[in-house]
């Protein structure tokens, strides 16, 4: 087969003050016609820089191509000027992005956004353009394309928006499609259908696809060949079967080894009195007015669950299922409309802040985003001691304890006086865990606490959570959208959909014999089940 795109010895330099000299160094990869090449790596591996260099849309003030060639269609894209480049983009090279919401113009109908591309690149009449756009929308299997043609992006779901993006990218029938984490922002069930669609179109058109992802599950489902990148360097490339069955490089082995299995380990059932018990919790958002009440969202609908010391209860569901709202009710960051929340047999559902305050010690939370959950202007030490000192502990004792906790969560106590920006994402998540533990809680809520982390770091933080659960006999409420993570860490699982619990039970049972159709579709949609 002929090589469609060939990158030879490409190096891109970072600005002089960065932590390393090259964003990517001496990268040589190629994409053939009629194949999907997956570039995998963790954050900072240079996979996106590689893709953006091919499209010529990298940040030219910060990055410079210092050497190497990007050969495509007889040209070296590293050297062509902006005018020549414009002829390639759209027509022969097309790209889809991670965020389908921000990549579409919110004030323009989606149909017009597709015809605009045709207007720029072809001489078709307006009528032809429209029929071509509709055809493109049919190709990506959008229901009722005539109606969606006249919709605005906010009227469509995430999956539909990503289909529009793909339709836009493919309407000019490009030879090479670059997809930068196109399914990362989507729910698993949507992700599965989009992956299937990309694969199908690729085969039908005989296109080359350069697919960037961090998820080895996705790689297993979609790739023909795989390039593994680490710190800007290609460490391994081979066919997908070779890489998955017989990885050579240590880093590839580690990445593949870090993918949690879908088979939950057997766990002992826990027979102790629950410390956290939610009974028929309801929470609605929005206000009804005299004339319309369609703005009300039932975020949580009659949810009941309980967690015992030493137990990890997982709440799984897709975005909008209300799992985070349950967590925020449990910790009383928001007040539920009805129902009771028993913490050690005291109902906190309707307590006022003054009565609630001393019970706040018992229940702590670790959030998803490690970059926003620590105050950037306070040292990590100040963040950890804040809670205990609120409850009258002396500064000296609090600092002493904070340093012990930093040791427990795997950080050097010397780093007590550093600021959050001096730590990596995984380290920050450890700091957040230490902050929660400083309160000596009985219950710990982890709200997507590992979702923003790279797989290797994710595995370490999960291990830490498991350790501290045993050590402090915590009841853990673990909220996640990732069924692989849930399978490994949870004793029991609650599956939520549109605010309601559809199924609950022991993890092992749910994964082997799901009864609700939604649970079944969720489990089926998890990527990479052929291999992991």
């Amino acid at each position, binding site marked *: 087969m002929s090589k469609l795109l060939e990158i030879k010895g490409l190096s891109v330099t970072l600005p002089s003050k960065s932590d390393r000299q090259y964003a990517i160094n001496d990268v040589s990869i190629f994409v053939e016609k009629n194949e999907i090449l997956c570039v995998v790596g963790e954050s900072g591996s240079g996979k996106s820089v590689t893709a953006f260099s091919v499209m010529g849309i990298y940040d030219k003030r910060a990055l410079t191509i210092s050497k190497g060639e990007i050969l495509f269609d007889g040209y070296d894209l590293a050297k062509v000027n902006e005018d020549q480049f414009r002829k390639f983009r759209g027509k022969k090279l097309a790209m889809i992005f991670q965020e389908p919401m921000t990549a579409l113009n919110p004030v323009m109908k989606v149909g017009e956004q597709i015809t605009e591309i045709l207007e720029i690149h072809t001489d078709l009449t307006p009528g032809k353009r429209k029929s071509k756009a509709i055809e493109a929308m049919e190709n990506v299997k959008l229901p009722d394309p005539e109606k969606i043609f006249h919709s605005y992006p906010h009227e469509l779901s995430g999956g539909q928006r990503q289909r529009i993006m793909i339709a836009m990218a493919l309407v000019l029938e490009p030879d090479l499609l670059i997809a930068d984490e196109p399914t990362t922002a989507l729910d698993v069930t949507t992700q599965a259908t989009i992956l299937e669609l990309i694969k199908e179109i690729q085969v039908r058109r005989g296109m080359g696809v350069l697919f960037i992802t961090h998820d080895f599950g996705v790689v297993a489902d979609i790739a023909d060949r795989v390039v593994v990148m680490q710190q800007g360097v290609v460490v391994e490339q081979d066919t997908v079967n070779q890489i998955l069955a017989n990885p050579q490089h240590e880093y590839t082995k580690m990445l593949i080894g870090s993918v949690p299995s879908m088979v939950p380990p057997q766990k002992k059932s826990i027979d102790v009195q629950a410390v956290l018990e939610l009974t028929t919790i309801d929470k609605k958002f929005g206000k009804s007015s005299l004339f319309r009440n369609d703005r009300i969202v039932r975020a949580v609908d009659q949810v009941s669950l309980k967690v015992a010391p030493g137990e990890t209860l997982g709440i799984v569901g897709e975005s909008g299922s209300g799992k985070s709202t349950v967590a925020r009710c449990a*910790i009383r*960051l928001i007040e539920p409309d009805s129902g009771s929340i028993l913490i050690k047999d005291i109902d906190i559902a309707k307590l006022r802040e003054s009565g609630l305050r001393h019970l706040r010690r018992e229940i702590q939370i670790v959030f998803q*985003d490690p970059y926003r959950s620590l105050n950037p202007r306070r040292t990590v030490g100040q963040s950890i001691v804040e809670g205990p000192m609120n409850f009258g502990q002396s500064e000296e004792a609090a600092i002493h304890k904070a340093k012990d906790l930093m040791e427990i969560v795997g950080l050097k106590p010397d780093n007590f006086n550093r600021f959050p920006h*001096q730590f990596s994402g995984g380290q920050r998540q450890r700091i957040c865990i230490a902050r929660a533990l400083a309160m000596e809680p009985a219950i710990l809520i982890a709200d997507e606490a590992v979702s923003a982390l790279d797989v290797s770091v994710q595995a370490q933080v999960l291990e830490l959570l498991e350790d501290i659960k045993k050590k402090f006999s915590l009841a853990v409420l673990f909220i996640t959208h990732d069924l692989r993570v849930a399978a490994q860490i949870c004793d029991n699982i609650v599956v939520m959909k549109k605010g309601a619990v559809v199924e609950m039970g022991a993890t092992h049972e749910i994964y082997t014999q799901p009864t609700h159709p939604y649970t079944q579709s969720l489990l089926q949609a998890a990527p990479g089940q052929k291999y992991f």
Partner: protein
Amino acid sequence: MQSQVEPSVFDVTWKNRNVSIGMSILVIIIAIALFGPFFTKDPFSLSPMTRLKPPGDFGFFGTDQLGRDVFSRVVNGGRISLTVGLAVAVFAILVGTVLGLVAGYIRALDSLIMRVMDGLMAIPAILLAIAMISLSGASLATVIAAIVIPEVPRVVRLVRSVVLTVREEPYVEAAISVGTPVHLIMHRHILPNTIAALIVQATYICGSAMLTEAILGFLGAGIPPEIPSWGNIMSEGRTFFQLTPWIIFFPGIALAVTVLSVNIVGDGLRDTLDPRIARSLK
């Protein structure tokens, strides 16, 4: 990822040309206003023999219709203008910040405070000042109060909007869940985020307050006429404007340069302290 220690706010802002130039001019003006009066003639001493003399033998800036030295009066007037500018900025920021924090953080009080602020915003500053002065008599304090009141709602809105964004940050929620009392949450976690926006706003308030003070003086509704503020000097010179333009010209220039330098500093601070704009300018 930032790995090195961040440079101090002072280093960053001083590198901005607007800040350094504006600040330098402002420091000179402040120095003149502070120390100048010790070296000039008495701004109140009348000299009927040398009335309406042009700049030259009888003073750098000439004399007015009562023979008073215009230079000395302009230098002394600087104290008034700067005092008004500074005092208005400080009071407006203080009151506005407290109200903004409360409105943004305590939902129950939000609509109450904001509706009062909307009401205040509807009153034109100059009309309010004239009304207040006719009620309680002209004095420096009344003028300052009259200018502060219409400025407060702008500060409240600014602070409230920052609070509304920051209160949703996970680190604020984490602070709530470790039992941090409301006043400490405001002080430790929310207030520091408003500082940059407030410093910028303060410079604009300062500049516009000096202008309003001069306008009030010029209309005869400001500081008592015997006190030489820039507005008052211009107001008195109005009658003789065509014959002796220097009486209006020099305080006018002083006012223009001061307000301009304050605004330049404000622009520079906005560029360096507001991260969104600063990033796009880098």
